[in-house]
Structures are given as structure tokens and as C-alpha cells.
């Protein structure tokens, strides 16, 4: 299974995402922002980082990269896409996911080991978890507060599209403690915390993040 990992200027966690794909048993394929071709990958990860320095708004400039034009069409056609942190911001800016991510309510960048509850296993990226499973993965963001209007939030809740929720501490002021959401079809998932930093016991607080990557590989094999 070939999982593409996009590098934008300023992407930082692209190598980590590729490593997580490999540890899960997949083949990581590097995709370049300026190349509109997805090179036949079976799924795509938009990694964390500060694309274009995040100078305007996180993800605002990356959204217009050539690769995104192709990716938006492919995602609308069902291609599995996982956006982590900056990748989540790019997905919202691209309108593949509703809502937006705003400055943390603390006004500080925050890096912490975050407890989450998996709220939906009906997505391409969470099928290997159990509903209600609690996991600990790193979280690191300056603009990670998830906002959307009440109707959108109700819709997300009602349709089971809240994928993960913060437990114990809401680190950034996200509405309804939302840490991740999916599109209606479940192929596109955006997540503020970083599962790719929790795939090896030596370098992460746990290996709880690995199942995001085994989920997609299992799903692709079964499909």
C-alpha cells in the first residue's frame, strides 16, 4: 500500500509521518507541493509543520499549492486523506472539512502529552480503534482551537463526525473539546494532535498513535 506524504515549504513532520507509515507496514511516497500529480498513491497524509511559515493564517497559503487542486478532487472522489495539525488547517482552509482553527485561547504555543478519546471508528483512519478508547499522543500547536458555528457543531456531533475529543485538559479552547473531525464520507480526517509522534516506545509517550496508520492499511487491503 502506498501512502503519499506531502511536503510543503515549511512542512516539518513529513519525515515523521513517513516513518509512521513504514512502521505500520506501508510504503511512504514523498509528494511535492509544486507537483500536481499524486503518483497513484492509495491515500495521502498532510503532515504537521508551518507551511509558508503560517504567516498569514495556518494553512491559508498551502491550500493554493498545485498538489492541493488535485488532492481536493481526489478526496471528493473518496481518496483517504489524513491532515495532522497544519494538515488539518490546510483541510479546513480547502473546505474539505468544515470550521476553522484559531489561536489557542492561552495565546501560547503548547506542547504536551494529550489524552484523547476516540469517538468514531467509522473513518478510514480510525477503524483499528475501539469506540471510546482512550489514547495519549503528543499535541503541539499555537493555533489549534477548533471553531465552527453551532449548527455545524451539532451536525458533526449528530452524524458521528467528531473523531476524537480532548480529555482532562482542553489545551487550546476547541469548541466541545474537539480534537479531530471527518467529512461525511469518512475518508477525510483532520486531527490536531500528532499520532505520528506516538509510534515508537523510545521517542513518544506511547505507541497509541500507530493505529491511525494501521487503520488505513487494513482498510485499503480489505477494499
Amino acid at each position, binding site marked *: 500500500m502506498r501512502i503519499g506524504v506531502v511536503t510543503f515549504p515549511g512542512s516539518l513532520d513529513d519525515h515523521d509521518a513517513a516513518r509512521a507509515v513504514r512502521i505500520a507496514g506501508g510504503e511512504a511516497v514523498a509528494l511535492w507541493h509544486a507537483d500536481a500529480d499524486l503518483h497513484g498513491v492509495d491515500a495521502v497524509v498532510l503532515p504537521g509543520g508551518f507551511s509558508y511559515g503560517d504567516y*498569514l*493564517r495556518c494553512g*491559508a*497559503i498551502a491550500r*493554493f499549492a498545485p498538489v492541493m487542486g488535485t488532492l481536493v478532487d481526489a478526496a471528493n472522489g473518496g481518496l483517504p486523506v489524513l491532515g495532522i495539525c497544519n494538515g488539518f488547517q490546510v483541510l*479546513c*482552509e480547502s473546505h474539505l472539512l*468544515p*470550521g*476553522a482553527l*484559531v*489561536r*489557542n*485561547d*492561552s*495565546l501560547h504555543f503548547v506542547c504536551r502529552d494529550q489524552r484523547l478519546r476516540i469517538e468514531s471508528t467509522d473513518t478510514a483512519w480510525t477503524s483499528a480503534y475501539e469506540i471510546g478508547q482512550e489514547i495519549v499522543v503528543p499535541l503541539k500547536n499555537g493555533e489549534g482551537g477548533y*471553531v*465552527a*458555528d453551532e449548527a455545524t457543531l451539532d451536525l458533526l456531533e449528530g452524524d458521528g463526525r467528531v473523531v476524537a475529543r480532548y480529555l482532562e485538559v482542553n489545551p487550546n*479552547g476547541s469548541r466541545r473539546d474537539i480534537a479531530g473531525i471527518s467529512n461525511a464520507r469518512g475518508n477525510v480526517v483532520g486531527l490536531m494532535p500528532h499520532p505520528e509522534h506516538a509510534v515508537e516506545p523510545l521517542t513518544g509517550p506511547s505507541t497509541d498513535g500507530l493505529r491511525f496508520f494501521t487503520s488505513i492499511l487494513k482498510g485499503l487491503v480489505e477494499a
Partner: protein
Amino acid sequence: MARVVIDVMLKPEILDPQGKAVEGALGRLGLAGVASVRQGKSFALELEGEVDDARLAKINELAGSLLSNPVIEDYVIREVTA
């Protein structure tokens, strides 16, 4: 050289933690009676040539897509000077 200034503000219903922080600080530093503070962004563009209707339309389009995120922000073009 033409000049265009665009202001971008968070929509009123979106929480503005930076504005809130400034509000608190202004009060502590002795400015009484501050009811609210909202922090916004502005973009001052220097453009070669004229800003005709077509160009203004393009600027409006980009102000509403690139410079602001309509989900959370509003924009106004505050100034257009030749």
C-alpha cells in the same frame, strides 16, 4: 503606485483571545472603562499601475479567500488610492 488597504477582523461571534488579553492589560495599566477590544489584521498593498475595476474585483476575490477565511473572518477594503 497605487495603494490598497484591507482590514480583516474576526467575526463578532468568534472568540478573540488576543483582544481579551489586551482588554485585561489595558485595564490593569490604568485605562478605565474598556468595554471590549477586538484585534484585527491589516494588509497594505503597494501596486504598480492603476487599480481599475477588474483589478479591484481580483483584490476582492483574494481578500475573501486568501487574506481572510470567511468561516471566521470578515474583511473590508478600507482604502484605495491612486
